[in-house]
């Protein structure tokens, strides 16, 4: 299928489409995870029809054992296959830290290059319906350990494109999906293979007054803030990072050099979160260009509360307020 044929898809559909394309092209791809096979096709429907099409040898509904899901993915990689280890919720990656961060992320280095371990861990975060143990966005744990790519798409096309790129990457990757975005946005996505390079940010809005850096679900917050700021005559560049490792510092620097002001926003806890690295790095490189400090709007320093009236996540109002501090 030529890349030009497109279809309107949600992120869930785009991810599913990405698996179909990738598994057709590469019979070494194997999927492991709880409930990933039919008749369910994944509790988020992202693996729909795959077991029917590719068989339950390649699409395995596993026992509830995230460590072994991840460890098997590592073993499959060492055995010449490429496994996707699906972890139902981001918080459950606590159980894959050993295999992914002590093993997959280090195997290439520890063996002097002899054993690259390209696995893909996928997971979902974003709901507060389940309380504090099904809600933490811990991408910074993975960023902090050298050796693994970290992606967090915010649109259907990027979701498919990053998924397919990760499935061809020579290195391990983590691809995070957000349950609030999975079914809510639709856009035209290539039906055939589609790739988005790692480490290339996307400018989703242009402006010369301030740079708002974001990724994943917070991109919508950033955009809403930008629209609101425009009413007050402040035009924002909004950057969707798409991947955090590698992180497109050149694109961020280019924008901040131009605007002289920057606010970073993400759902992950602000303290010791991804924005801290980005802010520190911008400041290191562009100190004399800055009109004020790089500011952050991240998750509050609390676990996820269950009650809907308690909100720890960024809002466009919080972002607007931070931007205005810079003027």
């Amino acid at each position, binding site marked *: 299928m030529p890349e030009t044929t497109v279809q309107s898809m949600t992120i869930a559909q785009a991810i599913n489409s990405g698996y179909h394309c990738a598994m057709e092209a590469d019979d070494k791809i194997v999927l492991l995870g709880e409930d990933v096979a039919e008749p369910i096709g994944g509790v988020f429907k992202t693996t729909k029809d795959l077991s029917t099409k590719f068989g339950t040898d390649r699409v395995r*509904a596993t*026992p509830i054992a995230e460590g072994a899901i991840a460890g098997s993915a590592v073993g499959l990689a060492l055995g010449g296959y490429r496994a996707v280890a699906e972890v139902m919720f981001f918080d459950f990656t606590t159980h894959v830290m050993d295999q992914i961060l002590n093993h997959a992320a280090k195997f290439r280095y520890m063996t002097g290059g002899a054993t690259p371990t390209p696995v893909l861990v996928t997971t979902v975060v974003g709901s507060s319906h389940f*309380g504090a143990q099904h809600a933490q966005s811990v991408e910074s744990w993975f960023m902090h350990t050298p050796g693994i790519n970290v992606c967090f798409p915010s649109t259907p096309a990027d979701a498919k494109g990053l998924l397919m790129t990760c499935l061809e990457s020579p290195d391990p990757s983590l691809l995070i999906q957000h349950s609030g975005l999975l079914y809510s946005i639709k856009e035209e996505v290539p039906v055939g293979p589609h790739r988005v390079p790692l480490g290339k940010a996307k400018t989703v809005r242009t402006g010369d007054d301030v740079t708002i850096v974001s990724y994943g679900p917070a991109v919508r917050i950033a955009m809403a803030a930008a629209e609101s700021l425009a009413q007050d005559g402040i035009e924002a560049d909004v950057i969707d990072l798409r991947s955090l490792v590698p992180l497109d510092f050149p694109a961020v620097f280019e924008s901040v050099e131009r605007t002289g002001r920057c606010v970073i926003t993400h759902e992950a806890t602000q303290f010791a979160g991804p924005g801290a690295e980005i802010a520190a790095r911008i400041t290191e490189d562009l100190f004399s260009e800055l009109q004020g400090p790089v500011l952050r709007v991240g998750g509050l320093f*609390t676990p996820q509360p269950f*009650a809907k009236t*308690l909100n720890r996540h960024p809002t466009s109002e919080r972002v607007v307020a931070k931007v205005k501090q810079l003027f």
Partner: protein
Amino acid sequence: MTDTTLTDRPPRLDVEALERMYSLMLGTALADQRAAAESKAGRLMAAFYPVRGMEAVCAALGETMRTGDKMVSTYRNLGDALAKRMPLRSIIAELYGKAEGCSRGRGGPMHLQDQDVNFTATTGIVGSGMQIAAGLGMAEQLSGDGNAVVVTFGDGATSIGAFHEGMGFVALWKLPVVIVCQNNQWGEHTSIKEYTAAPELAQRAASYGMRAEKVDGFDPMACVAALETALARARAGEGPTFLEFEHYRLTGHTGTADFSYVPKDELAAAMERDPAPTFRKWLLANGHLSEGQIAEVETRVRAELEDAFQFAQNGTDPVQADIYEGVFENDEFARSVDGA
């Protein structure tokens, strides 16, 4: 699982006890229904995990545990909470995220608890309760208070490492823990036949060096008997027991989930033994309760449920200003980090 004859009543269970057991079975089944209806109507946002199918075990837990016994449960916890005699209002209010809830709306239904009745902890992470129960068992063993610890979880939880590690600890130190495996044959959408080569969970448990027994989880009196023995052993310092209660999940994984994937014949056979109606029949057939007494119980249970949902829906929403409460004992650092 086709034999519907229930074991005889042990003499120590009087009419009040049987009424309590029926109330609990009926109450969880009705609460499941009501919560599902509220969810579908968009009035309830919580993920809710029905108990239906395991009510007999919960009712038996209610009659065999003492207040001093500590309990660790999961997301599928309503029956356990009621067995521990938690007030229904504080449970349903938590479901709605209200300040009147047992966890002040902070935890939600996955994190019910009530320290007054030693409904000690619930976890949303499959298998982790087993490790926590080991620690609670150590605490009981050290204090010598003669209480037991009960931990409940599903069949699917036996696949995860946390389960195994906890089993090792409990067996090694002969901790006073009763391990209640609610084998409803399913872990979300995957059948036990598909996720393990060794579906005889009690047998596997025995290989850790502890007493293990398989029990008909649809038979309330058999459940009472097995639990009584296990709890007595724990309290007497004779070590842990693993109880595999075999029954069947009579609903979807969550209150609103499709479960058309469940084989029709299996489900139909299990439905024949649906705990509350089966127990009702048995109570009547054996002359334990009259139609009138049953009707009274049913009216009371419905009224209590109505009251609890009303209470919850009229509850207070937590306010944003309090969001830092409880991160640490002292909120200061959490607030200062965010400049709040």
